[in-house]
């Protein structure tokens, strides 16, 4: 059975012939033969020079045109523009810049109708009330900032060529170093800034820093260890050595944790954040909420956010599970940035409507509404797993292959 490698302009470079014999039942002899053909076209010959040899793999022989990435980015940009226009319109209506617009309203009924649009102001004495479980929220915010910093820095450095798919494990190692060094300081600073100056928590800054450095990195390390144990259980030859595990442990406890403390120290030095409204002593009763405010809005925000990175996530998961190469780091960086902005703007719109319904518990609601994109991603992966009937053995081997060398 001959296999043919076809280039974009229909020139052939090699012809492979695969032969499968099945003489004895249960025994299969697999062999192949390769015929190399000299390139006639000079331009094509240049493509196979040593310095550009990886291009054919990184671009998958241009199987996916760059326009796919561009189109995805343009769609996200337009979505962001529309959402931003709605937010800006809301802000212009609410801010008292053009008072004459309201003064033109003469009749009592029209005034009543117009004043209703400011129903969100009813909770001005409760809107900045610190949330429940403020420590957990502060730790989550710190870890979120750390991950955002890591994702943006890694994709940007990969875009500039510091990390490449051609060097196995370089992206994973680079990402881990950025997560520990750069992200550590950011995580400590953000968690303390939120906890002390915004939530006005009473706990010591060292305790908050300890929680920040142990919670999410601990969960990540635990899950990674679980994967390693599973690989060891299946007697995989590509299990990461114990020395590598010790290095990771050192990176977490020896590098990340002290840097979190340093960041937390600087975060705790800030003054309390001044809010425009004073918080009352007793909380206002929240009226019965609609289905939209209970979950529909979160779902829409999550779908919008995940929709902006859907194309890139498809290629990234193809890289992880199907052994393909990913090289569009510029598109990835843009997508992460756009996804964050869309998530922010969508969350503002959803939160604004929530405030109009006099629901002042927006801290956790906005966090979970924006973060629900992670849940959508998980559901998508499960659906893909079921539809594609991914083999467990290939999954484990791919996971191990993605570990740093």
């Amino acid at each position, binding site marked *: 059975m001959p296999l043919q490698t076809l280039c974009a302009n*229909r*020139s*052939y470079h090699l012809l492979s012939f695969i032969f499968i014999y099945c003489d004895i039942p249960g025994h299969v002899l697999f062999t192949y033969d390769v*015929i190399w*053909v000299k390139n*006639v076209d000079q331009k094509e010959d240049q493509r196979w020079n040593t310095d550009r040899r990886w291009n054919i793999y990184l671009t998958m022989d241009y199987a996916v045109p760059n*326009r796919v990435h561009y*189109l995805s980015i343009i*769609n996200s940009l*337009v*979505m962001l523009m*529309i959402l931003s226009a709605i937010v800006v319109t809301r802000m212009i209506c609410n*801010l008292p810049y*053009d*008072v*004459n617009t309201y*003064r033109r*309203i003469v009749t*009592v009924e029209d*005034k*009543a109708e117009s*004043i*209703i649009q*400011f129903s969100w*102001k*009813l909770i*001005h004495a409760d*809107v900045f009330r610190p949330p429940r479980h403020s420590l957990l*929220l502060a730790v989550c*915010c710190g*870890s*979120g900032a750390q991950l955002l910093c890591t994702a943006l820095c890694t994709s940007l450095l990969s875009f500039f060529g510091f990390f490449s798919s051609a060097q196995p494990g370089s992206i994973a190692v680079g990402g881990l170093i950025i997560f520990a060094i750069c992200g550590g300081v950011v995580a400590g600073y953000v968690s303390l800034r939120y906890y002390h100056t915004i939530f006005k928590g009473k706990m010591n800054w060292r305790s908050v820093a300890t929680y920040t450095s142990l919670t*999410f990195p601990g969960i990540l390390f635990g899950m*990674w260890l679980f*994967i390693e144990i*599973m690989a060891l259980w299946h007697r995989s030859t590509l299990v990461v050595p114990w020395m590598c595990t010790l290095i990771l442990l050192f990176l977490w406890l020896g590098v990340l944790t002290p840097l979190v403390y340093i960041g937390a120290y600087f975060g705790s030095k800030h003054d309390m954040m001044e809010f*425009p*409204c004073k918080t009352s002593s007793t909380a206002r009763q929240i*009226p019965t909420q609609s289905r939209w405010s209970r979950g529909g809005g979160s779902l829409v*925000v999550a779908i919008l956010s995940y929709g902006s990175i859907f194309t890139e996530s498809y290629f990234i998961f193809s890289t992880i599970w199907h052994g393909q190469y990913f090289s569009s780091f510029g598109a990835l960086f843009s997508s992460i940035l756009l996804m964050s902005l869309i*998530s*922010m703007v969508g969350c*503002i719109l959803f*939160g*604004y409507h929530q405030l109009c319904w006099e629901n002042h518990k927006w801290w956790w609601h*906005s*966090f*979970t509404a*924006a*973060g629900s*994109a*992670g849940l959508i*991603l*998980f559901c998508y*992966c*499960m659906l893909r*797993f079921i539809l594609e009937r991914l083999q*467990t053995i290939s*999954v484990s081997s791919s*996971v191990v292959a993605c570990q740093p060398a």
Partner: protein
Amino acid sequence: MLIYIGVTGMISLALFLMLGFVGMTGMLWFNKVVYSSIITDGHIPSTQVLQSGNTQQGVSPYIKNLIFAALCLTTLLIPAFYYPSQLEDYTVYFPSYSNDITYDPPPYDHVDELDQPLNDELKDGIEGIKEHDIAEVERRMLLEDPNIDDLFEESGLSSEKTQLTSTPFRCGTHLLHTFEHDSYKFIIFGTLLWIVMIAFSIVRKRQSARAGGKIYNSNQAKVHKTLTERRRQLRDILSDPVLLNDMQYRYGDLTALICLVEEWKKNGFQVDKKNDCIKNGRSVVVPWIRYMNILLILSVFVSYICLYGHLLVSKWFSFLSSCT
């Protein structure tokens, strides 16, 4: 399976935290900005000062709606405008491509049965290139034939034939692949079906929106509930000294409105069904039906443009290109 769930869970958790932080920070900033707009210092400018300060008329709501509709349509039509750019690719794959050749789609039955033995007409087309030209290229390259350049001309002739039987965008998206498997009859039938469905939907909605209809009754109940809730909110706003000051800053004297709210308060914020509900119901229900119908028609139009209008759009594009 467990490993897959573990890795996916890690990535999902990371995305959850990352976007959660971004969303909450954005919401905090927004709240700080909008709540700082509440006037708390008690300074209320006089009407004369305000009127002399800014007399410029605002943008008409029709223009605002038009801009919004244009933005929405642009978003939805982006895929349709994307297709003409595939022409460039097509010329790479098929150098003999010409805009002068009229597109002539193959019969639906023939394309659907590609697995079966092909007739001579189609062999000269799509399959002709696959089976004849590629095999010829392969043979001559292996033999290092010096006349291999002539082969490209032969390929060009075949590709011209291919263009007659295949859409010029077949190297592009899967979406267009659908078109190749459809015929005009199918599209016309689908369009007619949609038109009938829309007409039926409009008639049913209008019937239901009349007095005693299903939509009418349910919306009357909704309007009643909403009005009661709004009146209660208005009472709360005007009872709050901070917000009353803020509203007086915006709207001027609110004495008449406060008296009206007092009157509502005496009646227990109940709405007179015969007058208020019907009046408000008309302003809510009728536009709602109208907008729903417009949305339905627009969505059908846009979906047809996106799915089957690429040739039309490409012609516009080539016309504009020739003009410029």
